[in-house]
């Protein structure tokens, strides 16, 4: 029995958004006297009932360790695990499922590349470029690598609107540039970067590109082959899956030439006290027992997103962004940071004279959950000259009432502070 055949696919492409919203149990609760308006999706998204059910079914009927048992349960677990890898492959259109490595999350995916590729191929005097709008997870691993190897970290700048100055690459790229690390969509500003164009420029210079796709995979169609990405990282919990699982996509030829990452069970072919040889990809990078449950849950989340349709999701979220942006424009003393023409459904903002944490607390008392802080992107805050921002981020299961609740709670902020 294979997991993918065990359930008929449900078609949600015609379901109304309110029917879809109803499938997320966590959304249907009150915060004090107010219905929850969950607008912190860029930090972590919610899980639909079908994915929750899948976790329960796996744990109650299929769980065992993978890839080593000779018994029925182990075969079921292995089937479920392998089926999820194939779902991931299809979801991002990787050439083969072996190029999709399961990690604990996008942060581990990026660290894996910095460790297993970087420590082998980056040397003294080499250069690595990161963009000005990276999450800390796509800066610090490269910074540490550069410190260790005597390499240089350079920064691709952005405009005041939060748009990368792609032309600056013409000057930044040179024969020492080994890697360019760039986010597909900015978590702090919502900017959608022209990744294909950036990759093309880098490749003309024989520079590899590591894409942080955390904020892209839940919200738009991603095709790693069309982008020609060398490495592409994302997390399960930001796309309606569980925490504790992420993916690293890498081109086969690159992954095969890399060092192992963590060493231990499953990643070896043979071990003696004199010498060990390593398993082929993806197992070379998956030492130890993986987060099998979370991987299966990620597979179910992908099924769910695909049953609605990624293009339909993107259109819905764009509509919510436009509605919210128009509502924000009517507010005095509220400024949106990040005004790129191509934006995901993220609004980072400040209210004149009010610290983002106070905004967050006041909104919470009206049931509105947002993020306040530097969003693990301190260089973005420094670049824009603010200590922190408040951030509302939308998912397809949000609705106009959620946004209205946000706008109304912002009025309370002003009432209290002015």
């Amino acid at each position, binding site marked *: 029995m294979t997991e993918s055949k065990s359930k008929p696919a449900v078609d949600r492409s015609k379901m109304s958004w309110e029917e879809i919203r109803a499938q997320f149990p966590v959304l249907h609760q009150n915060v*004090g006297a107010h219905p929850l308006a969950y607008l912190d999706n860029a930090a972590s998204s919610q899980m639909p009932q079908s994915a929750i059910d899948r976790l329960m079914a796996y744990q109650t009927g299929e769980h065992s360790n993978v890839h080593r048992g000779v018994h029925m349960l182990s075969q079921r677990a292995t089937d479920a695990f392998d089926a999820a890898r194939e779902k991931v492959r299809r979801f991002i259109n990787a050439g083969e499922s072996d190029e999709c490595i399961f990690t604990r999350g996008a942060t581990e995916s990026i660290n894996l590349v910095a460790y297993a590729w970087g420590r082998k191929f980056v040397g003294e005097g080499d250069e690595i470029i990161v963009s000005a709008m990276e999450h800390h997870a796509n800066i610090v691993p490269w910074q540490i690598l550069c410190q260790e190897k005597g390499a240089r970290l350079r920064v691709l700048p952005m405009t005041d609107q939060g748009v990368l100055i792609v032309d600056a690459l013409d000057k930044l790229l040179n024969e020492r540039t080994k890697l360019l690390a760039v986010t597909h969509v900015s978590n702090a500003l919502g900017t959608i970067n022209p990744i294909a164009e950036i990759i093309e420029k880098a490749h003309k210079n024989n520079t590899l590109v590591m894409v942080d796709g955390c904020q892209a995979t839940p919200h738009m169609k991603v095709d790693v082959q069309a982008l020609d990405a060398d490495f592409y990282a994302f997390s399960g919990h930001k796309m309606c899956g569980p925490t504790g699982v992420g993916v690293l996509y890498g081109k086969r030829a690159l992954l095969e030439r890399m060092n192992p990452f963590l060493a231990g069970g499953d990643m070896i072919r043979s071990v003696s006290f004199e010498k060990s040889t390593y398993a082929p990809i993806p197992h070379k990078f998956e030492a130890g027992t993986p987060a099998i449950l979370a991987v299966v849950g990620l597979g179910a989340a992908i099924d769910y997103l695909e049953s609605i349709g990624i293009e339909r999701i993107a259109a819905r979220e764009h509509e919510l962004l436009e509605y919210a942006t128009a509502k924000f424009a009517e507010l005095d003393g509220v400024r949106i940071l990040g005004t790129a023409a191509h934006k995901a459904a993220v609004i980072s903002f400040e209210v004149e004279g*009010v*610290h*983002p*944490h*106070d905004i967050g*607390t*006041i909104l919470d*008392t009206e049931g509105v959950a947002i993020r*306040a*802080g*530097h969003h693990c992107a*301190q260089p973005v*805050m420094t670049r824009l000259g603010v*200590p*922190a921002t408040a951030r509302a981020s939308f998912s397809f299961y949000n609705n106009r009432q959620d946004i209205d609740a946000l706008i109304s709670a912002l009025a*309370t902020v002003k009432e*209290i*502070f002015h």
Partner: protein
Amino acid sequence: MADLRSLYQEVILDHNKNPRNFGELEGASHHAHGDNPLCGDSYDISVLLGEDGTIEDIRFSGSGCAISKSAASMMTHRVKGKKAEYAEVLVDEFRQMLVGELDPEAEDNELGHLKVFLGVAGRPERIKCAVLPWHTLRAALRGKEVVSTEGDADPLAES
């Protein structure tokens, strides 16, 4: 709204808008920098401690949310002219009030007006904001230059 008013009382909002003892202190004898890396709140506290242990002058600078800024402002106002030992007592009582170990209405204490911060006790995620300036003051009085609300320097732990 009632809940919010207990958190953001007028006196807190007033100190946020018009912080007392704000700025640099020339000739300070003690100084410490305190920050909360997760939210970016960051304050410097400078103290002029007399030979008899009296806080002759105190000033703070830096930035952060309304809770942390008003806590710093009210703290400086309160400890100025008092003995360092007395400030230490306040640091402890303030912390105990926020973590629910001291009921300022029912038990003996020196907190006085500082009780307006009792509303913060119901919001665990904001306790660090209110405690940060106090923690920094204690560090300054004890000759510790840098403190943080993270890692070993947990403001909620006894130090």
